[in-house]
């Protein structure tokens, strides 16, 4: 705060306030507070205060560079920026309470959960009123309507249409800055193994999918595949894990009802078919002849038991799966029915995929499953648990009878990427705490692949050795620079568009990521990698001059030092009009406001 630059004397039309405060513009049911934690008010003719922009450099090593890029864009518009590099946990802590963000712009990455690639809901539904994750207080009546509708539309084609429209609206409205989808970069040893499967958001080596591990074929006698990782599993209790490495790594032991291919197609797993039979009823056929690793047979009872125990003890990592389920009925040994609480479009595309089914005979006598750490987790998955030593290593060995090891089945699911052969015997995850050491181990042959994200420089360095190659895969998890919509400035669509045109993501990707990222056309959070992507969204091309013209036309001015000022006089009246709740998604001409330049 305090005055910067030369403000004009406020000159306001009748009935228009001189200053507009930061405030909640709607009655948010989910918000329990009088005023937003951010205070960035607008005053007629005043030079803009330093604009708070927050990020966490712990988020991604290049995050600060990204923030600097945004800062440069704002600088070009004449807006001074206050960069706030916050500890990651504090950045996230804001979302614990839904009061809203503490900065005008707040950037963070989304994790590449497979769920996010399979269904548009995780990334889109947070833009609706009522979502706990809507901490930027964004609201667009049309979008609200579309999204609510698509969430209940179980017809695929119809839903795709709705989702496409939603993307258009969001991009056109500049609901956030969707700057880029960073690639997953890593390095692997190709002399020893063939058949790495590139899965979006996961690359060939991370743990969200098992494709690489079931598809790999040895080029030497050694059939043990060693993956170096930098985060360790914390427990052997998958369903009640807090979402760390164990939630992913342990899925190697278990199967879901369905699975997703590298093209993000849904394929059968423990369920072989089925689907909606009514608005809120889903019936599934289960795979026959499947055995738990301890030899017991898998039946529909296990599925029913799993859902019920999850519900009773609130399994945190399986919430997306069981959340809409009201009850489960066993229709036969290998047939179940789910009764849902509401119609849920994503049930078959997202929720049942990679859901973890537990063996009833193992878990039914456990007192408190959330505090249970099985000695030896038993699942039906492609790998059987071997050993685990916390912080050091985790080993699992091939479950030979598993369908994924069937070369033909894999050929169907993986297409070109499928390899035939004896496959691997064991997977071992080894914890190497430091990237330097990871690279060293890969080069020395102590490990076969690196299971974490590398920077391009690091990957290049690793690839210096024989047989080591840098690999990268695209991701569907965007970097989301959220705009706080309680702030008057952000509510001005003219400003948002100018901002979108001032931020040069592509330049950033070239300079600092060496091209290892995808820059979306416009502010569309749904990546081209997914099946829900709409390529025809509005793209406000980068052009600083034009951005400044837009601002000028909207009535903004600059002082002698080039500092941006809020509109004054008539233009101020127009500004105040634009930021009213019913107008925030409308441009100047839609409101029939003149050109103030």
């Amino acid at each position, binding site marked *: 705060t305090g005055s910067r630059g030369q403000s004009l004397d406020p000159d306001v039309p009748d009935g228009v306030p001189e200053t507009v405060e930061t405030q909640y513009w709607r009655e948010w049911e989910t918000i329990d507070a009088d005023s937003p934690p951010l205070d960035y008010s607008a005053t007629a003719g005043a030079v803009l205060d330093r604009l708070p922009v927050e990020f966490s450099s712990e988020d991604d090593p290049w995050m600060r560079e990204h923030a600097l890029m945004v800062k440069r864009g704002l600088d070009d518009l004449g807006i001074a920026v206050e960069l706030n590099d916050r500890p990651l946990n504090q950045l996230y802590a804001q979302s614990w309470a839904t009061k809203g963000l503490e900065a005008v712009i707040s950037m963070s990455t989304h994790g590449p959960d497979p769920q996010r690639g399979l269904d548009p809901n995780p990334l889109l539904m947070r833009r609706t009123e009522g979502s706990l994750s809507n901490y930027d207080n964004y609201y667009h009546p049309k979008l609200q309507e579309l999204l609510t509708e698509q969430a209940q539309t179980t017809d695929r084609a119809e839903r795709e249409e709705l989702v496409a429209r939603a993307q258009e609206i969001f991009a056109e409205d500049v609901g956030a800055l969707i700057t880029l989808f960073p690639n997953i970069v890593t390095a692997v040893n190709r002399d020893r193994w063939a058949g790495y499967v590139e899965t979006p958001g996961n690359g060939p080596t991370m743990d969200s999918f098992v494709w690489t591990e079931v598809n790999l074929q040895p080029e030497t006698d050694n059939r043990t595949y060693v993956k170096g990782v930098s985060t360790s599993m914390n*427990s052997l209790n998958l369903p009640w894990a807090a979402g760390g490495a164990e939630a992913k790594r342990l899925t190697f032991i278990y199967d879901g009802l369905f699975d997703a291919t590298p093209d993000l197609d849904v394929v059968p797993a423990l369920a072989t078919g089925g689907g909606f039979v009514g608005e809120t009823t889903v019936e599934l056929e289960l795979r026959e002849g499947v055995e738990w690793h301890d030899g017991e047979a898998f039946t529909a009872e296990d599925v029913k038991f799993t859902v019920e125990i999850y519900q009773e003890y*609130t399994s945190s990592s399986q919430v997306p799966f069981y959340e809409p389920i009201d009850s489960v009925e066993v229709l036969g040994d290998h047939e179940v029915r789910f009764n849902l609480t509401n119609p849920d479009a994503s049930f078959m595309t997202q929720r049942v995929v990679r859901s973890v089914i537990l063996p009833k005979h193992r878990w039914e006598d456990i007192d408190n499953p959330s*505090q*249970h750490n099985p000695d030896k987790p038993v699942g039906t998955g492609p790998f059987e648990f071997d050993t685990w030593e916390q*912080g050091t290593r985790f080993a699992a060995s091939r479950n030979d009878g598993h369908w994924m090891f069937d070369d033909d089945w894999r050929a169907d699911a993986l297409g070109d990427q499928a390899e035939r052969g004896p496959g691997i015997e064991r997977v071992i995850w080894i914890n190497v705490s430091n990237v330097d050491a990871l690279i060293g181990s890969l080069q020395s042959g*102590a490990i076969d692949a690196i299971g974490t994200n590398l920077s391009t420089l690091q990957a290049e360095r690793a690839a210096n050795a024989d047989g080591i190659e840098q690999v990268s895969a695209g991701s569907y998890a965007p970097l989301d620079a959220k705009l706080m919509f309680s702030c008057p400035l952000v509510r001005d669509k003219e400003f948002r568009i100018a901002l979108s045109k001032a931020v040069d993501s592509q330049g950033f990707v070239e300079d600092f990521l060496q091209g290892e990222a995808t820059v979306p056309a416009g502010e569309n959070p749904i990546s081209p990698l997914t099946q829900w992507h709409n390529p025809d969204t509005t793209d406000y091309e980068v052009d600083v001059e034009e951005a400044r013209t837009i601002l000028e036309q909207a009535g903004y001015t600059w002082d002698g030092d080039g500092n941006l000022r809020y509109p004054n006089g008539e233009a101020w009246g127009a500004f105040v009009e634009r930021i009213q709740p019913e107008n925030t998604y409308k441009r100047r001409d839609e409101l029939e406001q003149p050109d103030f330049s």
Partner: protein
Amino acid sequence: MTKFQRFLLKRLAISVLLTLIAVSVIFVVLRLLPGSPFEALVTSGNLNQEQIAEIRAMYGLDEPIWKQYVNYLTSLLTFQFGYSILRSQPVWAVLEPRLINSLILLVPALVTTAILSSLVGMYAGWNRGSRLEKFSIVSTTLLRSTPVFITAIFFIIVFAYNLEIVPALGMRSIRATPEGYLDTFVSLDFLHHYLLPFTVAVLYYSGDFLLLARNGVVEKRGSEFLKLHRAKGLTEMQQLARAGRNSMLPILTYFTLRLGMIFQGLILLEVVFSWPGIGRELVLAIQQQDYPLVQAAVFIMALAVILANLLADVLYAYFDPTVSTGGGGSA
């Protein structure tokens, strides 16, 4: 009841009180922390309000604060550290191996350095003004005042990266799969990994012991009783031994105190060397906001200090023939 016993009782009471207060402070600080380990889940949009509340209830976070406090106290003081939120395991099961890894690194290092540096320090103090003295003072001042992680980084760069004599990180080579403690710690591989952090720890601590021993001997060197020893015809070495024996007590006390601070002192060392010890685990747990684990780790560290303080006082009172055990010889 002898005087000594009475003194012991008093010190014990103080220690218990201190433990209680320290533990309470830890509790307060932890409760002040915003957020929780479930944040990541919430941010991902997977949980609704109700489910969050259920999870909180599961870990007792919904109870009134005083009740949480009472539960916390009773469990800590009975060494039931509870369940790690992230690890779904008893905290002790997580910490025990870490604790052992830390001890295996630090105790031998401390003992070695205490013996070696004290001897060198005594010798240096005896030969005051000699080159050896000057050199040992400069080098140990350097080693003890430089933050340990910097020394460690230098050593890693020189010995691991450039000379490639020893590995830079970890406790054993990454593909090793030892069974049980004996197998883990009694192997060439372990020794190989042990060398660098051990050396750095030894060097880091050497300064205090060396200076303490040196100052002690310098102080004693001009003393009357040594003059009498000299007059009796004792050789230089015998005199040095007497001077050394007379400066033992502060060294012993300091050793005990250091022993108590051992875990906290070398958090940085463990982080730099990726040594899977309790210090590194604590840093991780703090980052992951795993309350029960943090609580237990900090508690163990505090307890170690308190016990070491107690031990130091008792040893002091026990070994110093001149100390009066009547009063609070603590400060």
